[in-house]
């Protein structure tokens, strides 16, 4: 029997291979996910140990004690010095806890600080030019930091470790460094100093600074040759009163405990997509086997005639599925691991980060999970076809082979009940979630959980019941289609011949397309909804605030003009307006109801200001006797008038009582009007000057501001980057709707891209299924095709008919998927935003059209090879008797 099985497999090798590709892709997905998960952990581990360079032992300030409790024991210079005397220790270095800024001319750059050492194994940055600092007054800067400041070797820069320029020590740049391990990627570079230099920087801080207490994050140690790290670790630990010393690997492993958990969650999420892909692959396999069985009905009947029993027939099909499953899974595992290795090779050639390993390490799960799951899916998918095979009666061998394969049109009552329950309960959960999300914010989380559950249940319900409704959809669309001539009529009739198979094929595509369409519509709706919310929240596209330190002179008119010109020259900038801001006191009301507060006040030229407002409804409302309220103020509370004046402080920094404030006596009285949603009050330049004049002695600073309007709020990323460039090196704070949009959009786009990529695998498998179904149908209908040719169908008509059949099957799956996906997206966004914003249901028809075109195009593409085969059939075949 086994030899017959293998003989049949060989005979149908092409067909099995096509089905095997579906499993191959699915298992490759699973294998790649596991390998990538492992890689993520390895990369993180490398990143964690990178700050220790090539140390043999590390002593972290924070560690887990014997009871697994986190302890923090600050490390100081005495600790560092103590370790140098331990036997076997070759060199000791430390990783500073402090970081600060470097100033060169008028440019400030934030920077990490790291310490050099005689033992190169304990130095993190690589010195590319010049030399490492040799004395306390030398520093080697990160090449990029130096470039941004315009500093070079030999220049003097002021460096601090507190972030306060007042605490700076002037040092000479001895060299320029790079950061191959990406340790300082987050802080955009490091300043390499000698250990004496670091101590000098610490000393430069005020004597009472708390920062002095805690200057080292980790001590790093190298050992003499032949010293066993674990033995030395005990001695080190003894010297430090029991603070543990660890090898870098031990350290990473302890830290990774929680991190591995996160990586596992990520892996699990990706595996859910792999599960969808494998489910679709299962549908494809099941279809393929059903047709193989139908094709072999004659042979199977013959086997039954000569004495094979039902079990032998069933086992033969299952063995075939098992062999196919194992072969395809093994190929898939190799493909998946190969894929990740390929990605690694590309990444390493691009030198993205030295923390990423150059070769994959293969966890056992990356082999056995896809092997077991891939094989199991294949065998389970073959169960139904195997049962159908046993139903072939021995008598069938004696009858001419007609109408085989069209078996079991009835849909089981069990399936009906299960899908009905799923749909009803899922629908109820969805409705509950929708009602809760509308109610109040606090229940949103529960609403979302209910919604996800409900969505999942109804989706599974739709899939399990697809045998019921999909044929109906196919038939009604097919009827519409029939009027398009003879090939179309034939195509639609043919899709209805085996409703189960057509339904299963369409369903496979429907699953992937539904999820992709849901993501597309959901993302577009989210984006549109956020856009609306942001438009209301941010009247200004970009606001730039330049901080001045005490004593620093505000920008001169010519400096302001030069900045304005620089920004105007940037592509995508529509308009820029200069403004000023100061901290003022505001009072309103009188007597006991007098309210005093301190607010930011912005001064603008009203005529100019209107040109940068996104919401122009309030243009022209700003006059010399008015103040536009900040978004925090309520016009009804404030009443008719409001007094503004400049605040004065006592020498000790405390505030004078209101009546004694010189400004209050001269306060400017203004009429408050509804504002435009800025964070500060807004007045005209003239009024601002009057308010400043209320107390000429006041010393707090007036800062420059710029308000920028861009041409297009969506996709202003490059413009924003260039604006940042203009202000880089100065102490500025940039905010605005465009930035928020940029962030949200990037997050949404990346997420969408990743998810669609993951689901794309399922769609791809489904399309393989369409091709498979079509070519199997062609084989089954060989004689029919010949008959059609004999009674006057041209080759072109025959090809067109099959092309239409492919497009019909794929198109219906995609169409239903798009509709259901959009519906889920509508429900999902309603649920998520229902509480705080009106979801702006947006369908990007370009996306939808793309999904449809890709699906229908793939359906057509899938028909090409089978159609060519069918058209080659000689009409003589119609006359042949089996």
């Amino acid at each position, binding site marked *: 029997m086994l030899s017959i099985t293998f003989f049949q497999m060989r005979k149908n090798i092409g067909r099995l291979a096509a089905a095997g590709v579906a499993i191959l892709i699915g298992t490759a997905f699973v294998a790649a996910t596991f390998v990538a998960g492992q890689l993520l952990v390895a990369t993180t581990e490398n990143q964690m140990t990178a700050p220790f360079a090539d140390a043999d032992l590390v002593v972290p300030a924070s560690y887990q004690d014997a009871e697994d409790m986190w302890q923090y024991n600050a490390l100081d210079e005495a600790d560092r010095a103590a370790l140098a005397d331990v036997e076997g220790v070759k060199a000791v270095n430390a990783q500073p806890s402090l970081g600060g800024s470097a100033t060169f001319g008028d440019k400030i750059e934030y920077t990490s600080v790291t310490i050099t050492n005689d033992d190169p194994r304990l130095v993190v940055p690589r010195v590319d030019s010049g030399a490492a600092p040799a004395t306390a007054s030398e520093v080697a800067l990160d090449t990029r930091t130096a470039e941004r400041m315009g500093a070079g070797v030999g220049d003097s820069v002021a460096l601090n470790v507190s972030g306060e320029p007042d605490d700076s020590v002037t040092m000479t740049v001895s060299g320029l460094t790079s950061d191959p391990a990406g340790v300082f990627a987050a802080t955009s570079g490091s300043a390499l100093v000698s250990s004496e230099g670091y101590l000098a920087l610490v000393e430069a801080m005020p004597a009472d600074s708390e920062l002095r207490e805690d200057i080292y994050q980790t001590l790093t140690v190298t050992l003499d040759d032949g010293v066993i790290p674990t033995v030395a670790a005990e001695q080190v630990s003894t010297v430090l009163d029991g603070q543990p010393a660890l090898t870098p690997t031990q350290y990473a492993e302890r830290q990774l405990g929680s991190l591995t958990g996160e990586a596992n969650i990520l892996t699990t999420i990706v595996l859910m997509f792999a599960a969808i892909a494998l489910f679709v692959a299962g549908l494809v396999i099941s279809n393929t086997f059903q047709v193989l069985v139908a094709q072999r009905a004659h042979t199977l009947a013959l086997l039954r005639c000569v004495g094979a029993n039902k079990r032998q027939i069933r086992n033969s099909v299952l063995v075939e599925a098992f062999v196919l499953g194992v072969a395809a899974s093994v190929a898939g595992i190799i493909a998946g691991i190969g894929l990740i290795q390929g990605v690694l090779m590309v990444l390493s050639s691009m030198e993205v980060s030295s923390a990423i390993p150059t070769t994959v390490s293969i966890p056992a799960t990356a082999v056995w999970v896809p092997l077991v799951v891939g094989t199991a899916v294949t065998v389970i998918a073959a169960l139904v076809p195997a049962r159908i095979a046993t139903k072939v009666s021995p008598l069938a061998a004696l009858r001419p082979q*007609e109408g085989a394969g069209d078996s079991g049109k009835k849909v089981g009552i069990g399936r009906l009940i299960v899908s009905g329950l799923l749909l009803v309960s899922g629908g109820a959960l969805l409705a509950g979630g929708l009602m809760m999300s509308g109610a109040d914010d606090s229940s949103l989380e529960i609403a979302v959980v209910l919604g996800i559950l409900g969505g999942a249940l109804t989706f599974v319900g739709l899939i399990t019941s697809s045998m019921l409704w999909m044929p109906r959809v196919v038939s009604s669309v097919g009827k519409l289609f029939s009027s398009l001539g003879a090939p179309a009529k034939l195509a639609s009739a043919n899709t209805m011949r085996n409703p189960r198979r057509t339904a299963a094929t369409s369903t496979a595509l429907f699953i992937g397309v539904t999820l992709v369409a849901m993501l597309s519509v959901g993302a577009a709706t989210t984006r549109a909804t956020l856009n609306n919310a942001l438009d209301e929240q941010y009247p200004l596209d970009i606001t730039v605030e330049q901080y001045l330190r005490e004593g620093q002179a505000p920008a001169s008119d010519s400096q302001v003009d030069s900045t304005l010109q620089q920004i105007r020259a940037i592509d995508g900038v529509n308009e820029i307006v200069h403004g000023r801001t100061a901290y003022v006191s505001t009072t309103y009301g009188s007597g006991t109801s007098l309210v005093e507060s301190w607010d930011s006040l912005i001064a603008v030229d009203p005529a100019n200001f209107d040109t940068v407002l996104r919401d122009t409804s309030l243009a022209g409302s700003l006059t010399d006797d008015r103040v536009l309220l900040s978004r925090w103020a309520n016009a009804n509370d404030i009443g008719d008038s409001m007094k503004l004046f400049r605040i004065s402080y006592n020498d000790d920094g405390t505030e004078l009582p209101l009546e004694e404030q010189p400004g209050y006596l001269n306060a400017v009285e203004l009429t408050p009007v509804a504002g435009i949603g800025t964070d500060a009050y807004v007045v005209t330049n003239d009024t601002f000057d009057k308010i400043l004049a209320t107390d000429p002695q006041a010393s707090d600073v007036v800062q420059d501001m710029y308000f920028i309007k861009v041409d297009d709020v969506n996709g202003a990323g490059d413009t924003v980057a260039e604006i940042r460039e203009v202000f880089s090196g100065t102490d500025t704070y940039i905010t605005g709707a465009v930035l928020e949009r940029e962030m949200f959009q990037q997050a949404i786009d990346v997420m969408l891209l990743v998810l669609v990529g993951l689901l794309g695998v399922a769609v791809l498998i489904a399309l393989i299924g369409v091709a498979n179904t079509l070519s199997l149908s062609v084989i089954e209908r060989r004689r*029919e095709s010949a008959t059609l040719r004999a009674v*006057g169908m041209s080759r072109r008509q025959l090809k067109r008919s099959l092309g239409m059949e492919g497009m019909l099957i794929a198109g219906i799956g995609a169409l239903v998927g798009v509709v259901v996906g959009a519906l889920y997206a509508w429900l999902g966004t309603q649920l998520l935003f229902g509480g705080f914003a009106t979801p702006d249901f947006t369908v990007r028809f370009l996306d939808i059209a793309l999904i449809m075109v890709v699906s229908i195009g793939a359906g057509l593409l899938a028909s090409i090879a089978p159609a060519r085969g069918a058209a080659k059939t000689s009409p003589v075949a119609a006359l042949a*008797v089996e």
Partner: protein
Amino acid sequence: MSVPQANGINVAVSARGLTKHYGHGESTVKALDGVDVDFAAGQFTAIMGPSGSGKSTLMHLLAGLDSASSGHAYLGSTEVTALNDDQLTMLRRDRVGFVFQSFNLLPMFDAEQNIFLPLTLANKKITADDRAWLHQLAETLGLTQRLSHRPSELSGGQQQRVAIARALISRPEVIFADEPTGNLDSRSGAEVLNFLRTSARELGRTIIMVTHDPAAAAYADRVVLIADGRIAGDIANPTPESVLAGLDALRTFDSTAA
């Protein structure tokens, strides 16, 4: 080449030096070896011969289903052997009808749709005239009550009658029938053969039928015997007995030749 004429009778189908080889070199099989034959219009002719005699090949070539190695086949004044695939398709659509041994109806279409199939494929509108013709055919073939049935709901005999109606619907010049009774019991077979004869006599169709059953051949107006790819006999107004005698003669001829 001029269109062959035989004794002033209108010739519907003819062959001149028609030859078909299979394979190459040593293993060449001559399925048909220079056949010259004429089939008169409006006549019901049976082609008979033992298995492998080339009777089916002759029919395939005459109907333009297969290409000849050499020689010519004519349908009326059209040289079938000179047509390309598209022209052959048109020829089959408009001028030729087929009846197959295994009926070959499309299972997803009902009887009426199956009968109209040649018109559908030609993208022709179904006219009132076509409908009248369908009803006349249905009545003659006893299918009036069966037009809305699918093939799976019809008996073998009924299916073959639907197939005959399909062959006749476009009023072709010639109907080729390949063992039309091969899958039928003798009563249904007799019915089908009667209809074919009626079609020839009353509707004036030319019918060429391949069969190996002497009883079936006896329904024809003429029997052409074929053996080893050559014409081996011609019987006018055959009876089962005369056909059997002819076949016996062939066997004798065979054994003497061997």
